[in-house]
């Protein structure tokens, strides 16, 4: 190359060491314990789902970038993370081909078609999930773990329901407890507090990523501590749900631990590309998410509303980003003017 020529560029001439790949890697690390634990509990079927979802995501990304003759950026880890997060939100016994289609849709329809990393408007993993959820609703609502409870968290009352109804998650069971009129079955002798322990430690009746709230929270704390994610979105989101559920006489702890709320709040609502940029915007985003999830969980057809809430609020982000800016410097005039 040009020997001895100096480089000219604009300032700054030094950069932080962070880069996209490292960030994605951190998130994957944060998710690793929960993922591994889930594989231990659910076994091979979940592994196939995981594999299919991740390969689908990678394949989608690769195909689109090759097709557009762009540099292929699989190595930045974002497509892998998308696939991983998608898998974590799928039921463990889903046919692998649905997971594959989910992964493909996530990166193609959810991300690359908008121009790739940083340009998508909706959370790719959730786009993938929503598409397969709507397309194969029966699989998606019935492919839950069916065998007996695992040692650590034996809730015989729930086990009874699982035997009775396919796809009864704790949320569905509690929906039946609270709104027997609109429910498909009425569980007997079940109480929200029965669920605390299994939800925290080992919950086999849900999506792959929901096995242990504790591991999810630990991963979240790690991400917050390493400043990968901002605490505002998870906190306002979970907080709003908790407050609203408590306000309407339901059990807030149960509703924060169960379903996709934690994984959604910590890992999906915080997705950089599809959440607001400013701190104030993030708070508003979190509040909106909380409200939507609350409404959808208790009054819509489905027992869970995290996915639709996040997608719905993703659509609001461009507007939030446009009007909710950081407080402009220079608005506050001379605080000490009096003296």
């Amino acid at each position, binding site marked *: 190359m040009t020997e001895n020529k100096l480089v000219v560029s604009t300032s700054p001439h030094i950069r932080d060491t962070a880069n996209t790949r490292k960030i994605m890697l951190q998130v994957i690390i944060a998710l690793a314990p929960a993922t591994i634990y889930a594989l231990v509990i659910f076994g091979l079927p979940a592994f196939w789902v995981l594999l299919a979802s991740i390969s689908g995501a990678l394949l989608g990304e690769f195909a*689109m970038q090759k097709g*557009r003759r762009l540099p292929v950026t699989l190595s930045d880890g974002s497509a892998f993370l998308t696939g991983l997060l998608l898998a974590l939100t799928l039921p463990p016994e889903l046919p692998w081909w649905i997971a594959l289609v989910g992964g493909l849709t996530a990166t193609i*329809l*959810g991300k*690359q*078609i*908008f*121009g*790739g990393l940083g*340009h998508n*408007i*909706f959370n790719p993993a959730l*786009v993938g999930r*929503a*598409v397969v959820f*709507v397309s194969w609703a029966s699989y998606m609502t019935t492919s839950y773990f069916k065998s007996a409870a695992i040692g650590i968290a034996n809730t015989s009352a729930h086990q009874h329901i699982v035997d009775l109804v396919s796809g009864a998650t704790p949320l569905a069971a509690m929906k039946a407890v609270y709104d027997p009129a*609109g429910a498909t079955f009425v569980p007997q002798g079940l109480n929200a507090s029965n669920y605390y322990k299994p939800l925290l430690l080992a919950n086999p009746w849900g999506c792959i990523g929901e096995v242990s709230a504790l591991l999810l929270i630990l991963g979240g704390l790690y991400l917050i501590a390493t400043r990968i994610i901002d605490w505002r979105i998870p906190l306002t989101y979970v907080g709003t749900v908790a407050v609203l559920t408590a306000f309407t006489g339901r059990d807030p702890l149960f509703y924060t631990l169960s379903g996709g709320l934690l994984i959604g709040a910590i890992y999906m609502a915080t997705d950089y590309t599809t959440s607001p940029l400013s701190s104030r915007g993030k708070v508003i985003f979190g509040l909106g998410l909380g409200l939507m999830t609350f*409404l*959808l969980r208790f*009054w*819509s*057809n*489905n027992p869970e*509303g995290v*996915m*639709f*809430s996040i*997608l*719905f609020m*993703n*659509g*609001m982000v*461009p*507007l939030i*980003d*446009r009007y909710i800016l950081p407080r402009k410097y220079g608005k506050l005039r001379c605080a000490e003017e009096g003296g």
Partner: protein
Amino acid sequence: MAPDMNEAWRYFLLFFGAVLVYNFILIRFIGLCPFFGISNRLETSIGMGISVVFVMVMATSVSWVVWNYVLDPLGVGDFLYIPAFILIIASLVQFVEMVIKKTSPPLYKAMGIYLPLITTNCAVLAAVIESVRPGFFKMNIAYNHTFPEALVFTIGVSLGFALVLILFSAMRERLDLAPVPKFFCGIPIAFIAAALYSLAFMGFTGMFGL
């Protein structure tokens, strides 16, 4: 008190359903042409949104009167409702345009250009037909075609229209900066975004039993 509360709740549901659950654009596919035509700039969308709310409410009010006091009593509603309603909308729009052009030029600058677009917007006609003429209302809720009901419904519908229009234009302004694949530039990508947003709106299906 209790019946009043029920009544209020019913009106709330009517409104809620019209805005979100039965959103005209994303769920009912009504009013798409101006939606995709206009939603590429935020300022325009806001102007259009306001104009639509205004025109829809006026059109429904007038049509309600015409239906209940002219067409229906005469027994000619069944075959005259289409020309009657569309004529009402067209003349109303033209009338409003003339009035604000004369009385408030700034308002005309803000709203005037969208008014002609509204005449040819099926959202207005659909809102009028559904709220006024029996047999077209879709929601699963008691609806007796009374004036207040028609009004609440129309306001809901038009606000739902405006809401999605505005959200969408912000979205499209962001998409303008994105390196979208060449053949998806412009209209196709807007449709993809609409698809995904309607997917999100599907979460509302059956909400509150609507």
